């Protein structure tokens, strides 16, 4: 086990360096010239030349990459081509927003997903089971950004409710003004959590059904335990192992979903920043954000894999 952890940890920097190289090359070699985009179509060659020199785009690609990579461990992710400000400065306010949104979404998905899943597995074939299955198929099929739009559209006309920070996109700090912060982030987090909740609901149900067929569950029943005790103490723990994995697998989707939901709610998070940066072809920013998203994704997957072995002692990584 320890050997496996060490091997995985050693691999992480390699993957991240590979990802950064891939990201850098993708954004430097394939696309058209950023400078044309910055100074517009009526640009003279001379201006473009100066601009390239100013942004360091006239140097060899590998020199540019090394320059950029050197800065990354020191927290220097480059400067935005558009605003000339360091990307990290912008991220200081945006990173916490996205992180909190993701955490809240996972919490909501667990709350919305696990109890109905258990209920429907314990009473298979009943009306409850049917309702849970229909609801989960619907939740699974409706894209999060559509739910978000409907929420804002009908929220405004039926309940005269609109996201409190819709105009500015500013999100109050969770430490200074936690209530306002939650008021702003809970609606998008619910929207984001619904899709994952459906997956969790379905998996909880099928995993529970499988566990309930085991011999030890029959033993528990036959020694006279109440159903509540059997479900909570004996079945649930084992049924939750695949659920823990699926949450890890859904993180990539959650990150993608956060890009969309932030865009609908106009939240100043990282996802919205990415969309704006792609729209203005601010490749330095896109590059930094893609690197951060990928790194976070790799690290979360590592944590999930390790948590899996910890949750289920039957699993051994050779």
């Amino acid at each position, binding site marked *: 086990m320890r050997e496996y952890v060490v091997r995985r940890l050693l691999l992480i920097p390699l993957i991240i360096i590979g990802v950064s190289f*891939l990201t850098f090359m993708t954004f430097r070699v394939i696309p*058209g010239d950023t400078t044309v985009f910055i100074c517009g179509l009526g640009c003279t060659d001379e201006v473009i030349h100066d601009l390239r020199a100013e942004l360091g785009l006239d140097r060899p690609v590998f020199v540019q990459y090394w320059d950029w990579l050197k800065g990354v461990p020191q927290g220097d992710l480059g400067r935005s081509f558009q605003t000339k400000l360091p990307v990290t400065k912008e991220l200081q306010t945006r990173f916490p927003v996205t992180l909190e949104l993701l955490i809240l979404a996972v919490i909501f998905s667990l709350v919305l997903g696990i109890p109905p899943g258990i209920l429907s597995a314990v009473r298979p074939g009943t009306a409850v089971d049917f309702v849970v299955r229909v609801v989960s198929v619907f939740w699974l099929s409706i894209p999060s950004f559509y739910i978000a739009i409907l929420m804002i559209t009908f929220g405004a006309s039926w309940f005269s409710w609109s996201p409190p920070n819709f105009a500015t996109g500013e999100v109050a700090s969770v430490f200074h003004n936690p209530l306002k912060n939650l008021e702003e982030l809970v609606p998008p987090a619910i929207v984001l959590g619904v899709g994952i909740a459906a997956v969790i609901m379905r998996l909880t149900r099928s995993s529970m*059904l499988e566990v309930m067929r085991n011999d030890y569950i029959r033993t528990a029943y036959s020694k006279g335990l109440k159903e509540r005790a059997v479900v909570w103490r004996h079945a649930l723990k084992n049924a939750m192992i695949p659920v823990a994995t699926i949450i890890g697998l859904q993180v990539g989707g959650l990150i993608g979903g956060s890009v969309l939901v932030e865009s609908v709610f106009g939240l100043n998070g990282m996802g919205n920043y990415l969309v704006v940066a792609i729209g203005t072809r601010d490749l330095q920013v896109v590059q930094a954000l893609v690197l951060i998203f990928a790194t976070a994704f790799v690290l979360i997957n590592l944590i999930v894999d390790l948590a899996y072995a910890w949750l289920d002692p039957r699993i051994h990584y050779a």
Partner: protein
Amino acid sequence: MAREAAIPLSTQEVLKARKPLWSRLLKLARHHPLGTAGIMIIIVLIICALFAEYVAPYDPQGIDPHALRQAPSLSHPFGTDRLGRDVLSRTIFGARISMFIGVVAVIVGTLVGSFFGLVSGYFGKWIDSIIQRAIDMLLAFPALVLLLAILSVIGSSDSAPRKFLAEHTPIPDGTFLGIPVFLQIFVMSLGIGVAIAVGTARVVRGAVLSLKENVYIEAARAMGASDGRIIMKHILPNVMALVAALATIFLPIAILAEAAISFLGLGVPNPVPSWGSDMTGQNQSDAVTRNIWWVVFFPGAALSLTVLAFNMIGDSLRDISDPRLRGGRGGGGGPNTGSGF
């Protein structure tokens, strides 16, 4: 099943052994109503996509200054948008764009992915290592982020791949096969296809790894068959079913992906009817600030209904193949369907 029966059959049983096809289909449909509903929705969708010109009552891009922002009525069942364009017609034509991008992306993705998966799994050694490490890198990106990265690079009109396609292939820039801005939409499908190829390659490689250990492969090699022949004659036919299954899983994901990136304003450009791009920009602000809900409601409903149909079909197929797990484990229809779009 009937042909494998070991007990001798009586004359009567032989006479009614196999019912005609339609009655067996009917029985299947009765047992799986949700899957049947899903198939019907998809058939309607395909008809809309193929014959949009005849199904849609108006021109999807036709501007009518006398019918701006009209609520749903008999003459415009889904209402009209800020330019007086008929939302129903746009939704019907949106099916064409969605289906086209979905199908092209899935074909490109599964072909490219299967190729790399086959090569990687069959030849092993350093080829395998290189391809698998490359896939590791690509899988390190969240799917939508990878897609946005790809499209931000190849999507613009001055990108190298797009210039290459415009200059060296006969792919037209304008309307083709009833699809406006064909080249741009084709390049988008390629981008989605790349994302699909990554997943396909991994799965196909795994299947090939176990297939090539079979004795009949060894026998073929002993008889002097070349690598090419073994791949084409013995391995490829065996992974075809898997690839087909992957394609059906990826199709709704590709359709969702198109809608998501168009929704972000980075996909299908504005005047072209697309479910994703019709829910964003001016339409979105019309819906929120003026309560013109129908301009975003119907395209989104069409998109959701499509994904729902695929999920219902997927559920039924799983019920048929494994009746013990009604409702199924994993996501709906596939590992990725609940991918947060």
